[in-house]
């Protein structure tokens, strides 16, 4: 077992900083890479070393395998942590790392490849006895086959890209007439997105819950699960809020699904941290959906209820070490919820909102964690993901966690760009969320309840007007140097308080 002393983090944003934090706690040096758009990004400042890797668009920088490898060699790192997104599920990259004698912090390239092909993954799981969504275990060969398969499965079905992910190349088919256009659209979208037009068909699971299990496995045959994460609150097939335990879960179901998750990981000789995603219907039937061979965005809620630093375990496993925990040592303590803070306009179809951060007030205190990367004056680049922070809270009970999340969202202020914060506050007040009675249709179903409240408060509005007036008067004063209005400007910062009615 060779101790890792220096790690290159082949990523940016909050996850790069998240990984560096654990490295720092473990006494490991960190190397950042940055594109032209990211010289002023916080991960560059957090790292011990930082190297430029190319132009702003990802495919000219963060996705440039050879450039990343070159930097890794220049900086003489022992290992590369890929974070999530970018090269994290790229088997070619994992292979290249191995070739250069650099540890890729993740599973073997073959496993990445196998799980990255949705059809291959279905086949492996079926073989291992893990329930999969009824459907094909191969690609569609002809348009005729589309009809044959659907005739057997019955409508509704989902047509999916074999290389898929992130909701791309995916089409729901409800009736006969939609079949052909949907198949063609899925194929074309798959080609654009993944450069691979292979598609397959699965039965559509109505009102599904998206529940995933966290897996950890070492090279010594130890594979454990760290319980579930409920990820059904999604917009545009992207997760918005996650929680653990899942309100849907029973102890029996947890045990059964957890065992299948471990079985799934063992079936492919998985090592490191990974996630088994399931669809669960209202009758608690569950189906393997896919495996993510990397750290997930939402991993902190698992960390909070289990007390385990997942990045630390990833590094220990990559060093060839043994997992520091056994399945029977693990318990879910209390309840954790994560809200993703996106720079977007939730009231206008979740349209991204790039721009410059004006001010930030962090939520602090008991049970609150934030993992973010933006700072005051930072200009969010247009080239990458709009997620700027994650707010994770913990409570003794689900009820306490929700109250705490409301409090934390109330405290969290990011101005200058539009964010999802106010929208998330409304979710935390929404009855279906509070009662835990929701599935992946939550956002759509509660459209009205989640709309901005028109609540009119005259005094509040008048105070806003007064503020603008004072600011304007101050500016005028500074400008014209007139004596009409004694400048109140900056007294807060400059003078102590002297008057009171």
């Amino acid at each position, binding site marked *: 077992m060779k101790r890792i002393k220096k790690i290159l983090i082949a990523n940016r944003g909050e996850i790069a900083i998240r990984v560096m934090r654990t490295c720092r706690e473990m006494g490991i040096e960190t190397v950042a890479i940055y594109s032209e758009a990211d010289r002023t990004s916080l991960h560059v400042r957090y790292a011990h070393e930082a190297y430029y890797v190319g132009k702003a668009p990802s495919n000219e920088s963060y996705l440039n395998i050879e450039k990343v490898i070159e930097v890794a060699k220049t900086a003489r790192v022992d290992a590369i942590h890929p974070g999530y997104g970018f090269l994290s599920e790229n088997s070619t990259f994992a292979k290249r790392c191995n070739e250069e004698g650099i540890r890729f912090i993740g599973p073997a390239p073959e496993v990445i490849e196998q799980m990255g092909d949705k059809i291959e993954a279905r086949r492996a799981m079926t073989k291992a006895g893990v329930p999969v969504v009824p459907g094909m275990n191969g690609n569609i060969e002809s348009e005729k086959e589309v009809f044959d398969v659907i005739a057997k499965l019955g409508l509704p079905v989902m047509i999916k890209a074999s290389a898929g992910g992130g909701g791309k190349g995916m089409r729901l088919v409800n009736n006969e007439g939609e079949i052909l256009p949907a198949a063609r659209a899925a194929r074309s979208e798959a080609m654009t997105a993944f450069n691979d037009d292979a598609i397959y068909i699965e039965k559509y699971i109505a009102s599904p819950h998206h529940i995933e299990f966290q897996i950890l496995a070492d090279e010594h045959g130890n594979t454990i699960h760290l319980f579930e994460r409920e990820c059904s609150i999604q917009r545009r097939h992207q997760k918005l809020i996650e929680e653990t335990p899942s309100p849907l879960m029973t102890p029996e179901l947890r045990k059964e699904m957890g065992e299948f998750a471990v079985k799934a990981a063992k079936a492919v000789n998985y090592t490191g941290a990974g996630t088994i995603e399931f669809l669960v219907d209202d009758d608690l039937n569950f189906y393997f959906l896919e495996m993510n061979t990397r750290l997930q965005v939402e991993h902190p809620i698992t960390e909070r209820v289990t007390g385990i630093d997942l990045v630390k375990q990833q590094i220990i496993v990559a060093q060839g070490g043994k997992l520091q925990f056994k399945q029977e040592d693990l318990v879910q303590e209390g309840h954790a919820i994560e809200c993703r803070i996106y*720079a*977007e306009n939730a009231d206008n179809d979740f*349209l*991204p*909102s*790039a*721009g410059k951060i*004006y*001010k930030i007030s962090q939520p602090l205190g008991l049970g609150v964690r934030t993992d973010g990367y933006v700072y005051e004056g930072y200009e*969010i680049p*247009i*080239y*990458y*993901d*709009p997620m700027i922070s994650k707010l994770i809270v913990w409570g003794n009970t689900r009820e306490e966690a929700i109250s705490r999340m409301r409090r934390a969202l*109330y405290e969290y*202020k990011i*101005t*200058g760009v539009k964010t999802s914060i*106010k929208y998330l506050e409304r979710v935390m007040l929404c009855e279906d969320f509070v009662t835990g009675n929701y599935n992946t249709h939550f956002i759509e179903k509660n459209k009205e309840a989640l709309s901005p409240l028109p*609540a009119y408060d005259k*005094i*509040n*509005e*008048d*105070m*806003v*007007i*007064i*503020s*603008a*007036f*004072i*600011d*304007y*008067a101050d*500016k005028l004063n500074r400008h014209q140097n007139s004596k*009409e*209005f*004694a400048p*109140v*400007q*900056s*007294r*807060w*910062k400059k003078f102590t*308080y*002297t*008057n*009171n*009615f």
Partner: protein
Amino acid sequence: MSVEIKIMDRIAKVEIINQQGNLLEIQVDDTIYKVDIMHTADGTFSIIQNGHSYNIELVPGDHPKRYTAHTLYNMYDLEVIDAESRYMLSRGSGAMTTKGNTISSPMPGKVIKITVSEGDEIKQGNTAIIISAMKMESEYKSPKDGIVKRIHINEGDTIDENQVLIEVE
């Protein structure tokens, strides 16, 4: 001094009655408030009015007289209307001109596709341009029926917020 402030559809008249340091008597339309107001140069306001504590953050807008105000629960767009704005307004220019004839960018991004050419006819609501930002593509549509008069950008260009992209006549 008295000015008008536009907040959503409301135009409020504001006037200072009396001032003693950070204590102000101030009239907003028909109501006179006694407020204890403290603020920083960069727009964080703390107002205590009748015991109640109000927190307001003013973010400067694209024009010196425009603000976005964040309160604990709401966000407001504001504009100060003084003699100058009224003059500009009467001239049909300046801060309050309508943008009915142009397609502008609500946020920075990259031009993926321009689906029209100068001289083309275009109908209201038809897509003229596709912009990509933060891994998402948005379609920008024509505000009215008309002829594409000028296209200010090219495919592949990086654009800023509030940049005029296409003029329609």
